[in-house]
C-alpha cells in the first residue's frame, strides 16, 4: 500500500502508538491507585489497547511482507479409496465383536440400564407440580393484606384506586398477588350469576399475574377501567371480568371473590375463579 512520500522514517508511527499505549497503562495504574474512576479506567484501557492495535496493524501493513503468497489446497479431502480402507478395517473388528453377539447384547443392556439410572437424579431438581399451579393460599375468610401485612378496610381505598394485596400470612406468595380495585358505585357487572356477590361495596379483585406470560399486570387506568400489562401490552377490561381486549392474552384475569369480614376488613370469599397465570398443557378448565 503506497502512502505517498514519507516525511518521517518508517515505523515512527508504530513507535508512537506503542509509546502512547505504555503511557496510558501508566496512567491507568495512577487512576487505580487513587481509588479508581470508571470512565477514566475505560478510556485509559481503551488507549492502552488501542495503541497496541494501531501499532501492530500499521507495523504489519507497512513493514511486513504483505499478501500475494500462494498455497495449494486439496479441493477434496481424502478420497473413496482411503475411506473404503477405513470402513474395511472397522468392519473386520466388528466381525470379531459380532462372533460374540450375546456378549454384545449384554453390554448394550448394561449400558442402557446405566443410562436410564443416570436420568433419575434429574427428578431431584425440583418439586412435583402437583396442584401448585391450580391452588393458591387464598381461601374463604382470609384477609387481603398489603405487602407490609396491613389488612385493608373499604374506606381506605378511594374510588378508582388500586392496591396490590396478598393473602394474610402469605406476603411473599407470588401466585396470590391480587389487584384490589375500588369501582365507581354500581358499575360492577357480574359475568355469571355466581359472581353476583363477589364485589362488596364496589370492590373487585383480580389476579395480578398476566394470563399470557405471567408478568405482573402493573398499570390501571381508572378512566376507562383498563388493566395494562407492560410486558407484551395485553389490555384487560375490569368491567368485563378482566377479559382481554387487546394484545396476545387469550384469557381473562381470574377473579377473586371478596367479602367484608365481621371486623370490617376486606377478605376473600374463596380461591380464584380459575387457575391463575399463563396457560399450560394440562390446565384445568374453569
Amino acid at each position, binding site marked *: 500500500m503506497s502512502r505517498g512520500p514519507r516525511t518521517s522514517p518508517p515505523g515512527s508511527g508504530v513507535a508512537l502508538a506503542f509509546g502512547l499505549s505504555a503511557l496510558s497503562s501508566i496512567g491507568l495504574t495512577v487512576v487505580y491507585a487513587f481509588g479508581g474512576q470508571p470512565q477514566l479506567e475505560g478510556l485509559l484501557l*481503551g488507549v492502552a489497547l488501542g495503541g497496541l492495535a494501531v501499532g501492530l496493524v500499521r507495523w504489519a501493513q507497512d513493514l511486513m511482507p504483505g499478501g500475494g503468497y500462494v498455497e495449494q489446497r486439496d479441493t477434496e479431502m481424502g478420497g473413496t479409496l482411503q475411506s473404503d480402507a477405513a470402513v474395511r478395517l472397522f468392519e473386520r473388528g466388528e466381525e470379531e465383536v459380532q462372533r460374540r453377539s450375546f456378549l454384545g447384547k449384554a453390554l448394550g443392556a448394561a449400558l442402557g440400564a446405566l443410562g436410564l439410572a443416570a436420568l433419575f437424579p434429574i427428578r431431584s431438581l425440583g418439586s412435583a407440580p402437583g396442584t401448585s399451579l391450580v391452588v393458591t393460599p387464598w381461601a374463604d375468610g382470609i384477609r387481603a393484606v398489603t405487602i407490609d401485612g396491613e389488612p385493608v378496610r373499604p374506606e381506605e381505598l378511594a374510588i378508582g384506586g388500586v392496591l396490590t394485596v396478598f393473602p394474610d400470612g402469605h406476603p411473599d406468595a407470588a401466585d396470590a398477588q391480587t389487584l384490589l380495585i375500588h369501582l365507581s358505585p354500581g358499575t360492577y357487572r357480574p359475568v355469571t350469576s355466581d359472581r353476583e356477590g363477589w364485589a362488596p361495596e364496589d370492590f373487585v379483585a383480580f389476579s395480578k399475574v398476566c394470563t399470557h406470560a405471567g408478568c405482573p399486570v402493573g398499570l390501571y387506568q381508572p378512566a376507562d377501567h383498563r388493566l395494562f400489562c407492560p410486558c407484551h401490552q395485553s389490555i384487560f377490561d375490569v368491567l368485563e371480568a378482566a377479559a382481554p381486549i387487546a*394484545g396476545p392474552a387469550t384469557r381473562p384475569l381470574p377473579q377473586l371473590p371478596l367479602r367484608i369480614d365481621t371486623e370490617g376488613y376486606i377478605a376473600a370469599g374463596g380461591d380464584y375463579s380459575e387457575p391463575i397465570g399463563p396457560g*399450560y398443557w394440562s390446565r384445568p378448565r374453569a
Partner: protein
Amino acid sequence: MLRQTAGWFDTRLGTSAFVQKALTKVFPDHWSFMIGEIALYSFIVLLLTGTFLTFFFDASTSHSVYRGAYEPLNGVEVSDAYRSVLELSFDVRAGLVMRQIHHWAALVFIGSIVVHLCRVFFTGAFRRPREINWIIGVLLLILAIFNGFSGYSLPDDLLSGTGLRIAYSIALSVPLVGTWMAFLLFGGEFPADEIIGRLFVVHIMIVPALIIGLLTVHLAVVWRQKHTQFREPGRTEGNVVGSRLWPSYAAKSVGLFFAVSAVLCVMGGLAQINPVWLYGPFEPQQVTSPAQPDWYLGWVEGALRLVPAFDVRLFGYEIPNPFFPAVLLPGVTFTLLLAWPFLEQHFAHDKEAHHLLDRPRDHPVRTALGATTLTFYTVMFVAASNDLIAKWLGASIFGITLVFRILILIMPPLVGWGTYRLMKALTASGAGHLSEMPLAALTNGASADGHGSRVHEGKAHTGDGHAGDGPAGNGLGAPAEDAHAPRG
C-alpha cells in the same frame, strides 16, 4: 535459546514439521473475513472480565440488607445476588468498568456472530465442504444467545427478574412436558429460589465449556480446510492467495484483538449499560415499564407481542399462546438455519465443493431469500419496542401493533423481490460494485433480466477446470465465471 527450545520439543513431539507448515500458512486478506475474529476476540474479553466478576458475585437469593456506597438503596433488604452486584459496581475498584465491559462484550459477541453468519450465507461459504462448520457456527450462536440471557438474569434485578418470569411461562407452555420442565429448571413454582444459583453454574461453566469446545473445532476445521477466498485473478479453486501467518497475518490478527478490546473497554468505561441499581431489586409483584430484553432476544420479544391472541385447545389440553412465538418460532428458525446448506444443495442441485466465494449477485435467489429472512426478523425486533414507539409517536398501542402485523406480512416479500431485481440488474449492468451501477440498469432490469442470465448460463461450465457445478437455470445455480471481472 529459541533454537534450543524448539529442538527440545521437536525431539520429544516431532513438532517442527507442523510449525514449519503453520508459520507459512496462507490466509486470504479481506475485511469481511475479520468479522468472525471479532466474535472470537469478544469472547476472550468475556472470559477475562467474566473471571474477574465471578470473584465478587454471590449467586444466592437469600436476603440481607444492603449497606454500601449507593445511597438510594442503602438499608433496603435485597437478595445476596443483587447486593453483590451493587457492591462490585460501587465498592470494588474497577468493578463497574469490568462489569460494563463484560456486558458490552456480550452484545458485540453475539452481534458479530450474526454478521459473520450473514457474510458466510451471502457469499456461499457454507457450501461443501464447509457444512460442518456452518452447523458448528449455528450451535455457537444458540449457545451465545443462551449464555447472554443466563448472564443478564444473574443480578436478580427487577428487569431481568421479569425476563426470567417470561422464560418460566415459555417453559410452561411446552406441550406435554412443559409443567415438569419449568418446575425442574426453576426448582419449583416461580419464583423459586434455586434459579439464580443454577443459572450461575450454567453461565460460567457449562455453556462456556461448550463454547470453547465448539470454537476450537470451528477454528481447527477452518485451519484444515483452509479459508475461502473471493474470485480474483490468480485465485482458483485449487489455491489460497494471501498473507502468511508469520509474521504479517499474526500481527494483524493480534492487532485486531487489541482493537476489539480497546473499543469494548471504551464502551465499558463511557457508555452505561444495565444499571441494575435503577431497576431495583426483583419483587414478584413489581414490573419495570418499559421492559425489553437484550438485543439478541428482541425478535422473540417482538414475536410475543405481535402474535394474535389465540391458543390451541384439544381434547381438554391446551397449547398456550407463548408456545408459538417463543418455542415454535425459534425452533423452526434454528432448524432451518442448521439445514440450510443441505436444503440449498438439494434445491440447487449443487453438491460440489466450492472454495471460491460468490458475490451476492451471483445467486439472486439465495440473496433474496436471505434479505427476506433478515427483514422478517428485523420487523419483529423493532416490534419489541411497540410500546416505546407508540409513546414517541403519541399513537395508540393498538394502531402501532396493527401496523407491525401488516409490516411483518408485506415487508419480507417486498424486500426479497427488490433484492432479487437489484441483484439481476447488478449482474446485467456489469458494474464491479453497487455504487458504480447506473440507476438506469435498475429500471431496465426487466428486459436485461432474461438476457443477462441466459448469457451466463451458457458459460457456467467453462470455469477454471471446475466443471460440474450442476445445472444452472434456477437462481441458485452455478455462478458465471465471466461475471467476476477483476476489481480495483
